[in-house]
């Protein structure tokens, strides 16, 4: 779907919350996240994702643990922290609020 370049900043800002949403379902590793995002409008690359994840971990929204994999080296599996969960809830509330605001303004 060809999306307007003007929406780039919006997608950029939302990426962090989308990652929170992906992680909230289950523990995931980076290749999983990429695969999920790939199908959406928010496809991203490792060069962006790794620094972002490290920042989110520093801010204590996510954490990871090492897990052995059948194929290849051990992987980092990310999961949400309590702080991350409340952040995600807050974001969802805010998103709903934005939606109603936008819709009401049009009337």
């Amino acid at each position: 779907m060809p999306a307007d370049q003007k929406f780039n900043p919006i997608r950029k800002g939302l990426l962090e919350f989308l990652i929170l949403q992906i992680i909230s379902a289950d523990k995931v590793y980076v290749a999983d996240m990429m695969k999920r995002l790939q199908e959406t409008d928010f496809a991203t690359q490792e060069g962006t994702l790794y620094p972002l994840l490290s920042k989110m971990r520093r801010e204590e929204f996510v954490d990871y643990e090492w897990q052995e994999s059948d194929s290849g080296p051990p992987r980092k599996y990310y999961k949400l922290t309590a702080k991350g969960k409340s952040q995600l809830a807050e974001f969802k509330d805010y998103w709903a609020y934005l939606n109603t605001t936008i819709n009401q303004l049009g009337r």
Partner: protein
Amino acid sequence: MNTVIIINLNGNAFHLEEPGFQSLRAYLERAQVQLRDNPDKTEIMADLEQAIADKCARYLRPHKNVLTAAEIDDVLKEMGPVQTDGATPAGATGGEQPHVGTKSSAGPAPKRLYQIREGAMLSGVCTGIAAYFSIDVTIVRILFVVLTVLTGGLWTLVYIGMMLVVPFANTGEEHAAAAGAPFNAQEVIDQAKKHYAEFKDSKEWRRHWRQQRREWRRRWHEGAYWWGHNLQRNVHQFSTGAGYGGHLGAALLIPFLAVFNALLFCLWIAAIVSLATTGAIFGWVIGGSIPLWVSILILMFIYSVIARPLRHARRAIYFNTNGYNYLWFAAWYEILSTGVLILVCWFAYTHVPQVHDFFQHFVQNWSTMWNNLIDSFRHTVSHKPSDSWLDAKLSGAAAAASTAFLALRR
């Protein structure tokens, strides 16, 4: 056929084609720079390397264990440029073709003057300037030569100054800054590719220059060692003439060389001192208008030309003693020459009134010498009275001259 380089990516070994290696190195250097202030830099770099390693592994088969340059470029394109918080791009717009920011996140790339060793003839000052102004390095070199001639050699000081002050471009980022190129991952890859192509094309030239330099060096050595080799041969014949007699001969030649070398050194120092204080070598006025500093440089040169072959002869003796008492000979030589040096100094101090006077008023004489030297520089440079920037330049030149002299002695 391509050169292959083995690298270690977070603990995994890979074989890469040389151009691919250059691209990868440029990418990782760029990542390092982007993450330089990031507290988790080491960890992110390890993650990135692991991700690259995983992607690289996909291209390997049982009978294909080398990654081509094109494959590395694909891997890096898939990785995307490393971006930190402030400049996180939205990623892909359509999914397949990731959007890579054309503008560098750091705004306009800073342009700085560097010395570039690659393709340098001396130190890389000219190559750096050529990169800075994006002009051909040959033009810069010709300009430098013309300026040197026009300023009567003063431009050499500027060159030496730049050599000492201007930093060397070491990392890919510095190379980019030297040329003022925007520093963006994709462009770095492109540049690495371009440079490699240019490098291949310029190989012929490089070989030519290398041969040229080797030739110069060879000629210089031949000239300087001309009689050193003769002496060496004679010494060799003399010392290997007969087993025991040969050793004896060497042992006798050593003191001769030691005394001669020590005397030569004393004579040389005395000549310089006398030239600098009185403007004449032991009363002999050098004709014409050769400035003091030039005469001193000539003296240094003459000394090194004479001393070089002597040193060679000495080494020849050391090695013709079958090696087993090499140290003994060396120690013997050092003790003798130091002894002679002290002896000569003492003798001169007690018996030659000029030398005695010189040491009595050493500080004053030293400053006289120095002032004479500076004055001679000033006369060469301009006929205007002293200005202070010149003093700074002159001390720089003096330092450079002594460095050159030390390098020659080696």
